[in-house]
């Protein structure tokens, strides 16, 4: 299994632990990642907010380079994932649009290869049996809620590898790792990430609701697949009591017994070390 790898900007800065844990678990699971040379930012929410043509051209440059590599692209960040998929979707549906876009970026791009989220790759391409075979430290005693947020599941005609209202891929992965995946009511709610600077009062209300739903079901931690959800929930949550926010990749790494895992958890603002040490997982 080999993919062109699109890390996305946050993996080298605010979500370093997401990038590091993704690469480490792929190595361990036999998923080969070849970084797209000289990749650029996908433009995220701000690209499409201000200009549709920009929102297609920025991802297209990366997709065109990946196409030269002759590989499907693996994406870690949920927002990058939607942006790359949206552009690919338009080109696949209209060769004329693809030609105009190719002129704009000065490179051919014909949507010949797919774009996949790392969660989809691990759960569906690799399969949970393969993951389970490599679990050395089952995550016993951890009550976790899977938070999918927006762009892993919506809009379903562009991104959907899972149910848009009641996705289960992350829950099933956590169970394969030995944790208890708890059902809850905020799986696909929005955390308000795009408003955290522009209107933080709205973002704080939305992310507060997500944390509250997790507390209601007595979760030990919230598991995420998006660096914006993570930053938002980890940095801006309010009491009572800390609610650790963990990337699914970190938990895979922990269950696989990777020694680097503790270093990833040390990068969180809400410290998960007490929780994990209390459960004898670190």
């Amino acid at each position, binding site marked *: 299994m080999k993919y062109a790898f699109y890390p996305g900007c946050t993996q080298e800065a605010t979500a370093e632990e997401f990038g590091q844990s993704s690469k480490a678990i792929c190595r361990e699971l036999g998923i080969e990642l070849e970084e797209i040379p000289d990749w650029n930012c996908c433009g995220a929410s701000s690209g499409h*907010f201000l200009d549709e043509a*920009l929102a297609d051209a920025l991802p297209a440059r990366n997709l065109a380079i990946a196409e030269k590599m002759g590989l499907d692209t693996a994406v870690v960040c949920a927002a990058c994932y939607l942006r790359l998929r949206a552009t690919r979707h338009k080109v696949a549906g209209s060769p004329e649009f693809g030609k105009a876009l190719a002129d704009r970026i000065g490179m051919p791009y014909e949507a010949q290869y797919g774009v996949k989220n790392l969660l989809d790759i691990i759960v569906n391409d690799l399969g949970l049996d393969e993951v389970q075979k490599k679990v050395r430290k089952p995550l016993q005693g951890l009550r976790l809620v899977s938070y999918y947020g927006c762009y892993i599941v919506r809009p379903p005609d562009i991104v959907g590898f899972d149910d848009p209202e009641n996705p289960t891929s992350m829950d099933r992965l956590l169970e394969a790792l030995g944790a208890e995946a708890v059902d809850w009511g905020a799986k696909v709610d929005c955390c308000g990430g795009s408003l955290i600077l522009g209107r933080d009062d709205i973002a704080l209300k939305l992310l507060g609701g997500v944390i509250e739903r997790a507390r209601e079901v007595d979760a030990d931690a919230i598991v995420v697949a998006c660096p914006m959800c993570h930053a938002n929930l980890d940095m801006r949550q309010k009491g009572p009591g800390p609610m650790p926010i963990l990337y699914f990749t970190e938990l895979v790494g922990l269950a696989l017994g990777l020694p680097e895992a503790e270093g990833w958890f040390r990068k969180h603002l809400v410290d998960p070390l007490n929780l994990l040490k209390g459960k004898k997982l670190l």
Partner: protein
Amino acid sequence: MSDNMTPSKNDCDPTFAERVRRESGVAIDRCYQCLTCTLGCDAAYAMDYPPNQIVRLCQMGMKDKVFSSSSIWVCTACEACVTRCPNEIDIPHLMDTLHQMALADGSPVKVPSVPVFHKVFLAPIKLFGRQFEVMMMGLFMLRAGKFSISDIKTNITLGLGMFLRNKLKFIPHRIRDTKAVKEIFRQTLEGRGK
């Protein structure tokens, strides 16, 4: 939530609905006001016109009410409405088109810090080809005038927390072919005269 929705002769711009249809490509006429979008909208509480009313105002050509609304700026683009709409009306894309039209029109912006954020977000990308958070945050504070004591306290606390965990990078990551990215900006956003 809304004030008077009844159009008067002076409010209606008959060309506006057509412009919205053309520029967005969104099938606004398919809306039969079932309110599914609004019921599932996490940001609707902060909107002066909830999403279903924005669609209705567009159909009626009430440009000024749409452009001066808070709704078009506080939509989080979470994609829940379009996922659930029985008529597949792409409201997030409609919102993108509407705030782009409002900016091009020079209309007063009800929530100015939102477009300021999106503009400063793109600035480092154009320069380096990648995001550079420290620069983006600095520009945002300057341009949005975020200097209240609570803003500064929040930024210091979070900035320090991130710095101690080595998550703040003070040197931008510059891609090799920055020219290609600058050219993309020139041909798209800047080509539109913004």
